């Protein structure tokens, strides 16, 4: 299995982003996904900047993939997507059907992102015809789904599973960070930059539940499939996705690398694995 560094979901300063990826270039990951997948208003790095960063990181000898926005609404967002796809030098992770269509029209192979809604082999077969070469399972899909796909007659593409990080659960036109701060989205002041791991949301009983990240809602807990290493291998997962977080990412990568190299599953460090086990995502179920 290979390790991938998933796209950065948070809004960080340009300096922080560049420093993060300078460091990441030295981490033992095989694939780095770059790009803004949450909110097109975040412009510390423009699409051009992300592409330039991709060029720089090529020297690190990692596979570089450009990730597209999950929720594309405005014409300007579609133009940015066209630029991302049009570059042609990097594979693109298509996170909505707009991206799939633009890639398909150009005959370019692509990675299918976790928000594409692929739930069965017939859907996957169609996307493979369109150029899909790798598929990142949706957040709510786990072991049973992979076994279902394996039981079909479709020659499966590379399968990538989210193995670490807060899960991207929902996307809206509304900015929840701006709402929490009592700001209109159009005058948001880019305040999500103040929350490099998102803005925590608790229940009225004080239990951690969700994380607000602009127009995206994430889990509060971090998914951790490190302890499920043997199962991931047994069902033929090809890549493990680790989502960036503000601190301690080098250690996260090192933990997974060590596990893959030694073949010994690490003890649990994150809080959740429910989706892998076919139950509520917020749960942690040890076998």
């Amino acid at each position, binding site marked *: 299995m290979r390790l991938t560094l998933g796209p950065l979901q948070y809004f960080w300063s340009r300096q922080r982003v560049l420093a993060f990826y300078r460091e990441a270039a030295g981490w033992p990951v095989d694939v780095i996904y770059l790009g803004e997948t949450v909110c097109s208003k975040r412009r510390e790095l423009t699409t051009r900047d992300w592409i330039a960063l991709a060029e720089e990181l090529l020297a690190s000898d990692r596979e570089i993939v450009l990730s597209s926005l999950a929720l594309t*609404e405005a014409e300007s967002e579609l133009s940015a997507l066209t630029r991302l796809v049009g570059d042609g030098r990097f594979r693109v992770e298509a996170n909505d059907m707009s991206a799939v269509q633009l890639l398909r029209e150009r005959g370019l192979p692509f990675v299918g992102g976790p928000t594409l809604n692929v739930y069965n082999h017939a859907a996957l077969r169609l996307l493979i015809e369109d150029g899909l070469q790798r598929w990142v399972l949706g957040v*709510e899909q786990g072991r049973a789904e992979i076994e279902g796909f394996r039981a079909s007659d479709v020659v499966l593409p590379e399968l990538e599973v989210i193995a670490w990080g807060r899960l991207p*659960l*929902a996307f809206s036109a509304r900015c929840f960070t701006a709402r929490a701060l009592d700001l209109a989205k159009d005058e948001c002041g880019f305040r999500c930059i103040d929350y490099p791991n998102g803005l925590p949301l608790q*229940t009225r009983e004080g239990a951690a539940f*969700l994380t607000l990240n602009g127009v995206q*809602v994430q889990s509060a807990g971090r998914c951790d499939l490190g302890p499920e290493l043997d199962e991931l291998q047994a069902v033929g997962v090809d890549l493990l996705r680790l989502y960036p977080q503000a601190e301690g990412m080098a250690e996260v990568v090192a933990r997974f690398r060590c596990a893959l190299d030694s073949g010994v599953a690490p003890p649990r460090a994150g809080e959740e694995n429910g989706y892998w086990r076919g139950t509520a995502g*917020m749960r942690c179920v040890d076998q």
Partner: protein
Amino acid sequence: MQVGFRGVDRMQLICPAGSPPALKAAVDNGADAVYVGFRDQTNARAFPGLNFTDADLAAGIEYAHARDREIYVALNTYASSARLNQWRAAVDRAAALGADALICADLGVLDYGARRHPGLRRHLSVQGSATTHAALRYYRERFGIARAVLPRVLSIEQVERLCAHDVVPIEVFAFGSLCIMAEGRCQLSSYATGVSPNRQGVCSPARSVRWVEEPGGARSAYLNEVLIDRFAAGEPAGYPVVCKGRYVVGGETIHALEEPTSLNTLDLLPRLEKAGVAALKIEGRQRGQAYVADVTRICRQALDRLRQRPQDWTPQASWQRELARHAEGRQTTLGPYHRSWH
């Protein structure tokens, strides 16, 4: 080739029905088409006691067709590989019973419908999350969709621009409960309960809901042991869905995602018509016959009024009052159509 639709002479009114009496109420009160689902998880309102047996549907189609109205069958959840044959069989049943269109989101289901029953129209469900002309082109080229229902994330200006691209006829939500996330992209119910709108056709399943009476008359609503909201004595308490709960963010207790409210677009009807929107959809297959009758009647009156006197459009106060009565939390909003909502 797809025929342009901008010359369509009037917006169609598409109404929900979760039961045969609701279907009759929709037809009798002026729906152009009624959308329904089977009694299983193939549709996104898979609630106990709701929806249509094959015999119900046959009778409903006969009733509608006798009055020159249409019936659409929603097969708009996503099938796992293991269950795909059930969805395909549902497509065959809808075709055999004489449905006028299927409302689907799953690529595998759309593909099956297009190949097996090319004469049966396919509409892209809101669960398909298509928000751009590029995405619409995909579904048109791949599956020959005849219409697409837009997710409730676009502003009115974005709806207008999308219509101007003239890729496929567009259906938008006009009234009803407001999903605030891009439909088909929301795992909040799934995250808390393991049951999702995408897979099981249910948001916030009743079996995971628990009400607790607190001292002093307050009531707490739990979803799989997650406290969604706590209501003071006498405070109206809505059904606990994750996106409409009250939570603590930055030390304050707020409706962090959305308040209990419903979408109401009567104010926007002239703009939607001018944009070339082909059809208006009323949400609410889980609602009763009275809701369907009232909302259908008001929207029919509004559309007829708009047609007779398009200038100086003002929705009647009585319409707005009655719609508010059927709204969540008795309040309505223009929702994402209006930029300030974002």
